[in-house]
């Protein structure tokens, strides 16, 4: 097991390195020139050059990369002379647009995204899996048919529609949310009610889409597992249907969900762009969207991309380890 872990961790590090290099290369190859884009009104070639130097783009891409990596570990100083700014480790860069260390921007945005992702995750797991189990147990009877409708709606309705519908016709209409406060961040430890208010409708929007898929997946897994030989053995042993469902059927049927859920969650951690947009949440999604569409803020773009990649890759590892814990057949590696 230890050998397996070591192998996986080193593979993870290699993947992260490759991803970060690729991101740098991609942005180096892109025709847009951040130096020009961010130079503002008084834009002469000298100003552009100075800008380029300021942004650290006047050195070859591998040097840029090297500096960036170094910054991750020891922090970095941006600008020169009086305009010098120090960002402490891990330094993901400096946003000249917003005059802040990117790391600080990330630190602000991440809790928002985390709250959104975590809440939605728990909600969709509870709803999706429970509904799937019910649908499987009452296969072809009315609970199954009702859940089928739910699945259909959830998977067909894109979040930008469901989100807006929920916002307009539920949240605002019934006065659950004050439009001025839409998306306002409340610290969950100091103002839990405010926090809940901000996130409840985005949670419902996101969970609706994901829960539908999980219902369908759980249903088919439970049905398939129920016809396995080892379930027949459990019945022949004299175990009650309740125990069989809980200990035998579900354990086997839900194991694959661990993998999928982990990766879905990791994907959301990088920023739920649409939901954050609709509900005005200042999370990583909004951050990266603004950096790409409005500011062309390269350091922020690089940082959010990398962060999203880190979450996915690390979660991949976590999920694999979890799965090996659940399914002993996988441990042989």
């Amino acid at each position, binding site marked *: 097991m230890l050998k397996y872990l070591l192998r996986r961790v080193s593979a993870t590090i290699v993947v992260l390195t490759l991803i970060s290099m690729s991101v740098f290369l991609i942005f180096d190859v892109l025709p847009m020139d951040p130096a020009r884009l961010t130079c503002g009104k008084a834009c002469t070639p000298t100003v552009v050059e100075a800008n380029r130097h300021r942004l650290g783009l006047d050195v070859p891409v591998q040097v840029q990369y090297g500096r960036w990596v170094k910054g991750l570990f020891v922090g970095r100083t941006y600008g020169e002379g009086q305009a010098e700014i120090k960002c402490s480790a891990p330094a993901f860069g400096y946003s000249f647009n917003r005059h802040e260390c990117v790391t600080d921007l990330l630190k602000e945005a991440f809790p928002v995204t985390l709250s959104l992702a975590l809440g939605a995750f728990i909600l969709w797991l509870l709803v999706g899996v429970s509904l799937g189990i019910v649908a499987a147990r009452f296969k072809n009877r009315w609970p199954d048919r009702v859940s089928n409708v739910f699945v259909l709606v959830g998977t067909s309705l894109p979040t930008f529609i469901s989100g807006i519908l929920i916002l307009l016709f539920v949240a605002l209409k019934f006065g659950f949310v004050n439009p001025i406060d839409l998306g306002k961040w409340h610290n969950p430890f100091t103002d839990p009610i405010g926090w809940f208010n901000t996130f409840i409708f985005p949670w419902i929007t996101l969970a609706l889409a994901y829960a539908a898929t999980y219902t369908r997946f759980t249903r088919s897994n439970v049905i398939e597992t129920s016809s396995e*030989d*080892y379930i027949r*053995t459990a019945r*022949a*042993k004299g175990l009650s249907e309740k125990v069989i469902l809980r200990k035998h059927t579900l354990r086997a049927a839900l194991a694959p969900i661990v993998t999928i859920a982990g990766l879905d969650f990791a994907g959301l951690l990088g920023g739920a762009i649409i939901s954050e947009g609709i509900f005005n949440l200042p999370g990583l999604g909004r951050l990266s969207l603004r950096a790409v569409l409005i500011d062309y803020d390269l350091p922020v773009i690089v940082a959010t991309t990398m962060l999203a990649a880190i979450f996915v890759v690390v979660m991949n590892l976590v999920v694999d380890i979890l799965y090996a814990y659940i*399914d*002993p*057949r996988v441990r042989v590696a």
Partner: protein
Amino acid sequence: MSAFLEVKNLTVSFPTEDGLVQASNDISFSVDRGETLAVVGESGSGKSVTSLAVMGLHNRKATNISGSAVLNLETGPVDVISAPEEQVRRLRGKAMSMIFQDPMSALHPYYSIGDQLSEAWRLYNDGDKKAGFKRATEMLELVGIPDASKRVKEFPHQFSGGMRQRVMIAMALINNPSLLIADEPTTALDVTVQSQILKLLKDMQKEFNMAVILITHDLGVVAEVADRVNVMYAGKIVEQGGADNIYYRPDHPYTIGLLNSIPRVDQLDGKRLIAIPGQPPSLINLPQGCSFRSRCTFADQVAGNLCATVSPTLDEKDSAHFSRCHLTEKQLVAARGGK
């Protein structure tokens, strides 16, 4: 004195989209402790369906079951067919156990052998996990698994097919059942392993003084282990009797046909096999009269076209030897080749 298991007029059918599948009809037999009854038949004969009914493993909502299957327990007789489901459930794994054909898929892949055995024991005995594992280890030793105390913590995928079947047997016997039903227990195993498992079953039967029902299609296996035999075809028992009678004086064209059509390792004369023509009938539209008629080479010997119109009853042709056939004893002797 009644036998441990007495089955009377057991009939099982399933309503399906294509029609009513008459899986088994009017089955009656009994098995006592220390006895081995073999149920022989091919696919669609109803041999498994009957046993599943005895174990109460059919979904009552989706199956029509009538008749009775009485277990004569020390605490009194219980009819599995009419008793409430909860009561029947508490007999499974305790008074009666069943092992199935494919040992590779019969164990839960995520739980250790010890966990699964222990679960079976703790269902009917007071004891903690440690006690359960101890009992599990004892059973593994009993069924001949080497290094039991180490292997009890291992997982099913770490065991070979033969070993897994031994584990299944251990699990079935862990609560000292009085009836063991083995449904094709060795069909998926190599022949040398089959030998081991059959011997194990015989030894265990003696050890626990159990009634054993062995379901199989292999007439060689039946000859080795059975005291009595039920030959089934198209959902009915067509012949029933002691093993010697069935093999040396078969009283049904199907049994005769089967015995003539199987090659034997000890018969090297190269004589051509006499195959039974045709195919088994569909259980949805059973023909009128005798279900075997379309494949029977002796049907035309019966006067008045009886085989086509009247379904024969299971009659006693010899002592404790029954057959469902219109042919007379004389005609059957001739059909056998005059023995």
